[in-house]
């Protein structure tokens, strides 16, 4: 059940009221359990029910990963240093098994089969015709991150199984992140929660803006993109370029919209989750882009892939290799397809070049900053083409076709186009203001102007949004 489904918005108010009506803690009867936490139990129940609403059997995977990492972490903590390496390797591999089977088995099977066929050998294993459990990459990485944190002694192994189970299954983030760290979320699960007005209002604002990004910007642009991508050879080069730009905006609206809604829902339940986006299309370099895009994944990859490999505290060449591998892992994490791997490689190579040229941390102002933003956006958009297309051949053909012919791009539908222009203008204004002129347009902070903005945004969602509960792009990762 996703945040843009009507059913969720029927169910969520009930969850909200029951949650806040329940006492935070009740004194336990035995000495061993000093108190029980009805709200945490209720959140676990709600999270599992919402997850089971999609495919009940797949909750077993969620339970398995929770049990494995909970007991794994406790076991690691008790072991002496020299034996820990083997144990963490075993538990991490076991935790990754469901992800590897569901997400990568078919890909590896097909790739090996085509490799063997090209050598004249044919040995075919049957593919799995199973749906990938929703959010599996997100909760597996979150649980794995906790396991590594205990291994690196950044965190102590959690004693309360209930608290840990909630950390893994917490419904606002289970479907598409953000990937929280144990150090951020577990203390919030443990502490006494009281409803804070400001936090609740902030949550509603995030929800509203997230909805706008998803339903009005992403899903509407998706109509144009889907049409062009499905039959790109029939459209002109400029139309393909426009469609690629629209896809960059679509995936941003889709994922940032989801993340904002997740953060918003969590705030309404009294939790603060990490904000996954910080105006990524105003980045001046690819390195800067990854500080602003899917921040929780970038942080995960940095902490558990890049730094353990040596990070930047090594030779230049080794550092470049570390960057390359990190982004290769990022590509593979996104999906079992060569297109994602190439997408990851483009980002990795771009960052290596930036580092070699010293552009990664260089600040720019004025026109030079603008040029760098445009160049970064162009590279990111090119990489998104590989991300979007079903095969590498299609992606290369699409890029080639984009550079053929001149002229104005096709509008396809005047009504839809008017909505795209309006949605893009609103998003651009809001984000430009936050990025470049945070102290200007102060009249927008006026109480009545803000309320007008909220009402207008809400009405625009009802009038222009794609209200048919389209799925989230990152929901399939």
């Amino acid at each position, binding site marked *: 059940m996703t945040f843009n489904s009507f059913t969720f918005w029927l169910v969520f108010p009930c969850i909200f009221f029951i949650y806040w009506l329940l006492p935070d803690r009740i004194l336990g009867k035995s000495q061993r359990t000093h108190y029980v936490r009805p709200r945490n139990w209720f959140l676990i129940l709600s999270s599992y029910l919402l997850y089971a609403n999609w495919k009940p059997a797949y909750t077993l995977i969620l339970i398995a990963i929770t049990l494995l990492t909970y007991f794994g972490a406790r076991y690691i903590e008790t072991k002496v240093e020299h034996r820990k390496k083997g144990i963490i390797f075993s538990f991490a591999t076991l935790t990754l098994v469901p992800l590897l089977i569901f997400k990568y088995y078919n890909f590896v099977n097909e790739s090996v089969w085509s490799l063997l066929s090209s050598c004249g050998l044919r040995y075919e294993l049957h593919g799995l015709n199973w749906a990938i459990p929703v959010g599996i990459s997100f909760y597996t990485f979150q649980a794995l991150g906790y396991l590594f944190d205990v291994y690196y002694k950044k965190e102590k192994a959690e004693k309360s199984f209930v608290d840990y189970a909630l950390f893994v299954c917490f419904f606002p983030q289970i479907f598409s992140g953000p990937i929280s760290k144990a150090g951020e979320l577990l203390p919030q699960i443990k502490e006494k929660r009281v*409803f804070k*007005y400001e936090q609740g209002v902030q949550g509603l604002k995030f929800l509203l803006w997230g909805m706008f990004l998803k339903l009005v910007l992403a899903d509407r642009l998706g109509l144009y993109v889907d049409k062009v991508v499905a039959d790109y050879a029939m459209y002109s080069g400029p139309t393909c370029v426009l469609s690629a730009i629209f896809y960059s905006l679509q995936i941003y609206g889709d994922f940032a919209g989801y993340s904002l809604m997740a953060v918003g829902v969590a705030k309404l339940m009294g939790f603060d989750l990490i904000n996954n986006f910080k105006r990524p299309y105003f980045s001046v370099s690819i390195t800067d882009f990854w500080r602003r895009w899917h921040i929780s994944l970038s942080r995960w990859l940095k902490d558990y892939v890049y730094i353990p490999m040596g990070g930047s505290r090594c030779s230049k060449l080794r550092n470049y290799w570390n960057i390359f591998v990190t982004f290769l892992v990022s590509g593979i994490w996104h999906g079992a397809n060569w297109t994602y791997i190439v997408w990851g490689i483009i980002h990795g190579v771009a960052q290596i070049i930036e580092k070699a040229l010293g552009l990664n941390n260089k600040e720019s102002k004025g026109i030079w900053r603008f040029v760098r933003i445009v160049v970064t956006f162009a590279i990111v958009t090119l990489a998104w083409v590989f991300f979007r297309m079903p095969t590498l051949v299609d992606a290369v053909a699409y890029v080639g076709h984009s550079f053929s012919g001149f002229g104005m791009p096709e509008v396809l539908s005047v009504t839809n186009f008017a909505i795209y222009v309006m949605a893009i203008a609103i998003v651009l204004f809001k984000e430009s203001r936050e990025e470049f002129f945070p102290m200007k347009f102060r009249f927008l902070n006026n109480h009545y102007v803000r309320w007008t903005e909220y009402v207008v945004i809400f*009405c625009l969602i009802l009038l222009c949004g794609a209200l048919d509960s389209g799925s989230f792009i990152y929901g399939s990762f």
Partner: protein
Amino acid sequence: MKKFLKNIAIFFAIVAVVDFSIGKLFHYLQANMAGGRTGAEYYICERATEDVIIMGSSRASHHYIPERISEDLGISCFNGGQDGNGIILQYGRWKMMSKRYTPKLVIYDVTPDFDLFENDNERYIDRLKPYCYNPEVRDYVCSLYPEEKLKLFSKLYRNNYKFLETLSDILHNGKTTGYIPLYGKIRDEVVNAPENSERHYESPDREKCIYLKSLAEEIKEKGCELVFVVSPYWKSLDYDYSAIESIAKELNVPLLNYSKCPLSYNREYFEDSVHLNDKGANVFMGMLLNDLRQLFAFCG
């Protein structure tokens, strides 16, 4: 919490007022629109009194020329074809139309993708939502999708996505007969595709078949004539018509299938593989009118 809930209540109260006011404005615009898509839609739902009504998808709106029917048969005609739609929309429209009057003849152009095969039926109710002030339509929409009962409280939701179309249609003043001519020509790649190279044999959609049957039964009950027509397709397209054939046979409704007629082999008559151009529509009209004269006495 009290302040929080109070502010939420105020917010939704303001939204409700805005929603109601804008909804009223759109209803006024729709009801007073002479032309454009909005005007044509309102006309077919609330005003049409023509003897012959054409129903179907974009193929209906591009293939049937009401002026030709009126001239040749001496009876008035309106084309209510709607692109990207089929029986789910047209049955709702029939509910509104039949409450007001009974035409002499309904020509239903069958497009397998929209009238027979399984796909997402939810999108077909979109164009009925602005008319949900009508209890029959509202009940029909809610019987298809019960959650709409709540959603339809919002008038903005009813006009979701259509509001820009409504606003732009203010500029279109001319009254239309519903026919939308096409003047393009079919592409070489499509022409060179071998005959029947695009086969579509999909399982029939239970819901669509039920409403096709209900439409046929209700039309007959009202004493109106009905004819199912499959207008020409380009030769490379091949569909399974067994579902409509069995419905037509069961209810004793004539079915005229021109899907593979001499027109299907002449590129001069096609805009693309599913749509005739204006030239093709004129030729097709000649064939259809001849057959209608033989089928119905009042067309003689």
